[in-house]
């Protein structure tokens, strides 16, 4: 086996197809996008080279700042809800109690639902006239009826929550698997030393989940910055352009306005933004690997 793994030709033979595929479908389009972002281009005709003009325009565009802000809000809500609630649920289910198996499955159900179905469901719940959420406030006697999706200030929060809710099950599954893989003897030792269950988890389990959290955080934040489908279905970016994200700005530029070059600049910015965030997370949560 060792001899085989040392064979450079064999390594090349087996990795080449994957590498080739990756280059063609991932790397090449990214390069193309960067290249095209330096053009004034309608997607069909030749296009004129304008170097960085698209980027300069991007930084002067108020929609860009709205999009940037919304992307960050979206990412923050995703990270907070998915990882926060996901952790609580993972610990609860990992403890194992009557019905925990059913809960484990039910938390995951929204993940497998189509995003369209989920959005339609929440559209009905958010409805300002007869939606469930306002009705609950009404039933409780609290006067807090809201125009959830049509108020330009609250809309992005409402939409982000839908996405956070839908994919929380996914983060929960990852966290649960990680919690379960923490060796029992560590917790047992802590318990013998007189630590409470809460304290044992806080001091032992959670630090041991660092790698998992890193992964979950990257997922949540890049997912938030990239968000598109939810606003496309639920508000169409509206009211006005209050629920735009960079992906939506890209869509609007390319397909509604016919400025593919400008859209590519937004896309290129998004790639850079995601890379920076990923590298930052990796740097900040860097720690020595724990081996069990």
């Amino acid at each position, binding site marked *: 086996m060792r001899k085989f793994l040392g064979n450079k030709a064999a390594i090349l033979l087996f990795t080449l197809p994957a590498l080739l595929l990756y280059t063609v*479908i*991932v*790397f090449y*389009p*990214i390069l*193309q*996008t960067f290249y*095209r972002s330096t053009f004034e281009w*309608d*997607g*069909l*005709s030749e296009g004129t080279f304008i170097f960085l003009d698209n980027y300069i*325009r991007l930084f002067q565009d*108020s929609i860009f700042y709205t999009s940037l802000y919304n992307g960050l809000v979206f990412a923050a809500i995703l990270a907070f809800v998915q990882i926060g609630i996901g952790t609580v649920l993972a610990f609860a289910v990992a403890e194992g109690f009557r019905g925990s198996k059913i809960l484990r499955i039910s938390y995951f159900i929204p993940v497998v639902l189509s995003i369209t179905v989920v959005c339609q469901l929440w*559209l009905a719940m958010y*409805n*300002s*006239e007869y939606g469930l959420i306002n009705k609950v406030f009404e039933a409780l006697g609290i006067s807090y009826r809201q*125009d959830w*999706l*049509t*108020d*330009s*200030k609250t809309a992005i929060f409402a939409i982000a929550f839908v996405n956070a809710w839908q994919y929380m099950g996914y983060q929960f599954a990852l966290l649960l698997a990680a919690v379960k893989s923490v060796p029992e003897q560590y917790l047992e030792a802590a318990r013998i030393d007189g630590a409470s269950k809460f304290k044992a988890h806080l001091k032992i389990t959670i630090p041991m989940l660092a*790698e998992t959290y*890193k*992964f979950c955080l*990257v*997922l949540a934040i*890049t*997912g938030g910055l*990239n968000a*598109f489908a939810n606003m496309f279905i*639920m*508000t*169409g*970016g*509206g*009211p*006005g352009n*209050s629920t735009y994200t960079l*992906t939506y700005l*890209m*869509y*609007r530029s*390319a*397909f*509604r*306005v*016919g400025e593919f070059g400008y*859209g*590519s600049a937004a*896309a290129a910015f*998004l*790639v850079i933004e*995601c*890379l920076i965030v*990923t590298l930052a*997370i*990796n740097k900040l949560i860097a720690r020595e690997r724990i081996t069990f």
Partner: protein
Amino acid sequence: MKKMAVTLVSLLAATTLAACGSTSEPKETSSATKAPTAAATTAPAKADAKPVKLRIYAQYADEDTKTPYDYAVAELKKEMPNVELELDIQAQDDGQKLKTYAATGNLPDIFQAGLDIIDTFKKSNNILMLDEYVTKFGFKDKMQPSAMNTLVTDDGHTYAFPYAGNEVALLYYNKDLFQQNGVKVPTTYDEMMAAVKAFNAKGITPLSIFAKEKWPCVALYDMFVTRAEPGGINKLDKGTAKAEDAAYKTAAEKIIELVKAGMLPKGATNLNYDQAAALYHEGKAAMFINGQWEIEAATKALGDKAGYMYIPAADAAAYDKGKTAFSGSGGPGGYAVSANTKDKELAAKVASFISLKYAEYKFTNRSNPIVATKVDKPVVKQFPPMMEQLSKDIPKITSTTAFSWGLSNPKFKAALEDASQNLMTGNYTADQFVKDLNKAAVTAK
């Protein structure tokens, strides 16, 4: 782990890019472009002509688009039995699919095109100029004189055979609701405000609008503008007026005031057509805004109770003067021909024929007298009374503007759509509105 994360991000990025680079869903065209040989180019109208298959990209979504298309195709079978049409149903996607077809050199032989498609395809040489065929097939003679603006674009050339005439946006109302509640049909902004307050007091929605779509918001704004500036949004689009001009700013202010007073249903910017129309059709909303194509549905739901009103204005004098300025209009568009089709004349002939028959059916069977071409066949289905009224109004119209899809500057169009939708929320100022429009106008090319 690091590697994995980076890979993951790259993957995410790639999916994002896929949306931008090319939403290509290339469809096999081999069957579609089995085009006629050179021998078949001489007006193949007879049954002995060689069989030809043409690919056509057309609207085929509801009764209003399916039945006229089916009729046109059936008529084509009689006239040119050798031509077989392969239908590719038009997607509601701002022309993305069609543009992708063009980008991948896969454009259907015939396609429905609006002004933005014509402008884009003109630049990239994808659309066939039809000037010679318009006269050769006698299409020009069949045009309604009042609809000639739908035949020729700004550069003086024809790129599509139009079928839709100059359509208008109307403010519908429920006569019974106004009468029962003792509300005067408004002629001025003050009366409109009084009506809004009166209906709200009774728990009736004053005006229903499907503002999740952006064009009805633009239409409502345009209606208010036309009272003081008959050129409406068209003037902004052409750059002959500025958003800060009194007519444009006042219209925004008035709408904001009315929206704040509760003119629109709650959550209006999240209502789709079905939800908004239901409010009006079920007598829960006193007014409704839509194009003239709503006449049939409104009459079906409300019968004699349905009507349309002239838009209120600043005062009585402006109201009388503004009655003849209508919002909406038509622009160049219709069935166009790909520049790369094998037999250009044949494709143009089929496109022209389909347009004529499409309009004919809309006129005779769909209660729609607003078509681009003259129809010499008798009406099968009588026009509803509102349509009769509109037919009388049309000759008196002194000016029309545009629907948002008739605007020529896509950047301004997108900005106006977003800003108009914002007007419907009530938490937007007229100054902000002007600022947002100016931004698009200044950098517009």
